[in-house]
């Protein structure tokens, strides 16, 4: 892709996305697509793959557009650090998460997000030891923000270089770093973290904290821009490579994202660990108490790929191939995917309270039901992949 044209292309694309309603939902295309007459197998496969690239592109663009909005809100807050503008910045973070979460199904197959130098670890690394970034209760001077001696100047390059240094929980950047800087630790049962806006005015190291928040937000925007570029229509990017793959290879990647997200990332890492430990720090978005969004919208991402729809965009999803190949299996998987989104929606909010109590408590039963649904879903995806002639993993394999 011509690098000089890129910003223009992105700007145009963002404008397009921003114009339409970006209520990042799953749409009601499933029913419509079920009636799509079956095409010849090869043609159907390449159409599904091609439509997938459009879907990926649209969702990354949406994630990027929302991150830009968040960047604006963060900068407005830092220019005038009031409680009100802090809340606006928080709201923009929550909104920016929704499209991003729906991109997580594009992970796990060494695509642009998580190939060898993919930015996944810089965008959404989790769980994090928040004391690596800033003060925590009982440790007023912890974190990079307060370590003036070792890190006299805070900028994006420093933050990026310190991510995951000396341990996988040493997370210095990404959405959750921003989340922590906007909300602070969640020390209450009722609501989210309650960081005071004075952390950015009169508190110790307020200006360093501002520098941190500004830089780490810029970094998220920058990394998303890179992902958008890899998936926009063009000749010299990942999308072009992806479209050159034999259909079965591309489908293997598409389904690997779905199976890994179902079986490994969601069922195991994000739900079962928290379910088992009953510990708040094992929930995904623990500072903002928005973990329910993480569950629902990640699973919506799988639904999007299955149905081929996102917002106003619709086209042949994976279900078209599945229905042509094994109608019964396709039916089971389709309902399971619906069921998993519904199951996640049924988990009571906030998540950090839902994990507590006896196993018969409504929250815990709802979580276990979601875990089991996702385990079924992962196994159905494995079965479908097998029918299609390849294998897909459901546990940790690639980053």
């Amino acid at each position, binding site marked *: 892709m011509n690098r000089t044209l890129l910003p223009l292309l992105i700007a145009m694309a963002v404008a397009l996305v921003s114009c339409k309603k970006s209520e990042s939902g799953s749409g009601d295309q499933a029913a419509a697509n079920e009636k799509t007459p079956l095409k010849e197998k090869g043609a159907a496969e390449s159409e599904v793959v091609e439509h997938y690239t459009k879907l990926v592109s649209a969702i990354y663009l949406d994630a990027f557009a929302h991150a830009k909005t968040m960047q604006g809100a963060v900068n407005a807050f830092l220019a005038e650090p009031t409680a009100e503008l802090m809340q606006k910045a928080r709201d923009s973070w929550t909104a920016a998460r929704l499209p991003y979460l729906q991109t997580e199904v594009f992970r796990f197959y060494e695509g642009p997000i998580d190939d060898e130098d993919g930015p996944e670890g810089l965008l959404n690394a989790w769980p994090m*030891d*928040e004391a690596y970034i800033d003060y925590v209760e009982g440790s007023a001077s912890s974190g990079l923000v307060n370590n003036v001696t070792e890190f006299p100047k805070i900028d994006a390059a420093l933050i990026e270089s310190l991510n995951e240094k000396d*341990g*996988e929980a040493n997370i210095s950047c990404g959405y959750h770093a921003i989340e922590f800087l906007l909300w602070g630790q969640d020390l209450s049962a009722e609501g989210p973290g309650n960081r005071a806006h004075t952390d950015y005015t009169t508190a110790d190291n307020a200006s360093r904290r501002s520098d941190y928040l500004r830089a780490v937000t810029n970094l998220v925007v920058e990394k998303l821009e890179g992902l958008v570029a890899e998936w926009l229509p063009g000749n010299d990017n990942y999308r072009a490579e992806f479209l050159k793959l034999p259909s079965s290879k591309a489908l293997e990647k598409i389904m690997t994202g779905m199976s890994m997200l179902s079986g490994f990332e969601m069922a195991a890492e994000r739900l079962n*660990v928290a379910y088992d430990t009953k*510990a708040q720090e094992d929930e995904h978005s623990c500072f903002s108490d928005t973990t329910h969004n993480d569950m629902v919208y990640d699973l919506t991402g799988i639904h999007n790929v299955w149905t081929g729809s996102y917002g106003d965009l619709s086209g042949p999803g994976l279900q078209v191939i599945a229905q042509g190949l094994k109608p019964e299996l396709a039916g089971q998987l389709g309902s399971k995917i619906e069921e998993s989104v519904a199951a996640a929606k049924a988990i009571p909010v906030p998540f950090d309270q839902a994990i507590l109590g006896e196993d018969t408590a409504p929250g815990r039963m709802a979580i276990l039901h979601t*875990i089991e649904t996702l*385990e079924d879903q992962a196994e159905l995806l494995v079965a479908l992949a097998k029918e299609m002639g390849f294998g897909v993993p459901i546990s940790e*394999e*690639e980053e």
Partner: protein
Amino acid sequence: MRYARWSSFYALTWLVTASIAWSDDRLSGGETTVFVTNDKAFARPLANISRLTRRQHTVGNSFFNQNWVASPASTTSRDGLGHLFNARSCSACHVRDGRAEPPGKGEIALGLVMRISLPGRLATGGPVPDPSYGLQVSERALPGLKAEGHVRVSYEEVDGTYPDGERFSLRRPTYKIVDLGAGPLSSKTRFSPRVAPAVHGLGLLAAVEDDTLRALEDPSDRDGDGISGKLNMVWDYEGQRLVPGRFGWKANQPSLRQQTAGAFVGDLGITSPLFPKENHTASYAELHNFGEQSEDQNPELSAKILQRVTAYLETLAPPARRDVDDPVERQGQSLFARMNCASCHTPELRTGNDYPLAELRSQTIRPYTDLLLHDMGEGLADGREDFEANGQEWRTPPLWGVGLQERVNGHTMLLHDGRARDLTEAILWHGGEAEKSRELFLNSTSKERSALLSFLRSL
């Protein structure tokens, strides 16, 4: 006759089936084997893992990876680090469940710990702790506190020549401890530097029955092959008795549970139901004002999380062997046998039929270890006793996955202290019972040596 014919037909069918199943050299871990060759090759759960076991595995994985923080902290289930520690997480040293390397010049060691002790043995049979420093030098301490010391390693190159004229060089390490927090160590102190090993396949090793290992023992070398092999007998803290040891560089831990709890307290300073006392000595804590250790506190690691982390380690799969049909590797494999490497690096073992975890039962595995202690000669000796292991004895380390270490960990350092920079150097360091094998390697042709290495890299 008909009956006989049919039965021989069945026998033949069975033989063919069995030999296919049994001779598939790719299956390092039998049905548990995973076919992965990327940097996560040691990080996969057993291929045949059940849903419920998988859930425990993933919880353990989370605790294996994450940093522990000082107590008290906002985090309730991940605090308790220190006062003294070598690392903040398991994965800091066992990176991607793989093997660590020794510290570079001037670096504070991460992944190599220095075990220390005084001469003699305790009533349990174990080594005698130093009165100030205990059994291990802690390289790190919580903010404001003083670490026990820092290990410094320097190397001297020792040149050698194969009989065919090809040259090689080994690096001989010298260790010293600097920045000592409580004054000089006794002149009688024994040192044993140990690198964090890879942790895949451990459950299968745990599932091999004691009797299977006993059958491999030959402590007085009755068969006269120059190779003895004995089980270490070590203290089981829960059973309060001596039992066979099988984990660690000197096989000084009897079970994954005790190994795990021991690493938590020794390396991270995290107490558990098994080891409720912190890793520092009373005199060190007094000297550096650690403050009172409250009596009533619960262990920092709950019994549940200890079980999960143990289950995680128990269920990491060994990766499949690659390129088994390559003729060069086939040649290397037969050389491995001919040079008697296989006498200790036992190619095949069978796991027990009634091991608690069903996934690990009745598997034919190819770990390339007998889990026994062998005299490895003066070159590798640390001169430090560890239960029945004398200062020249080491446990045969498993070789499965050794060819993927570079992919996983980005280096090829081997042996207990990482002194060998590659497989060749590791072989050339072998002495004692393995002296004859080393000589056979030295005297082989360069083509044969390279075939042997190809075989090892396929593991």
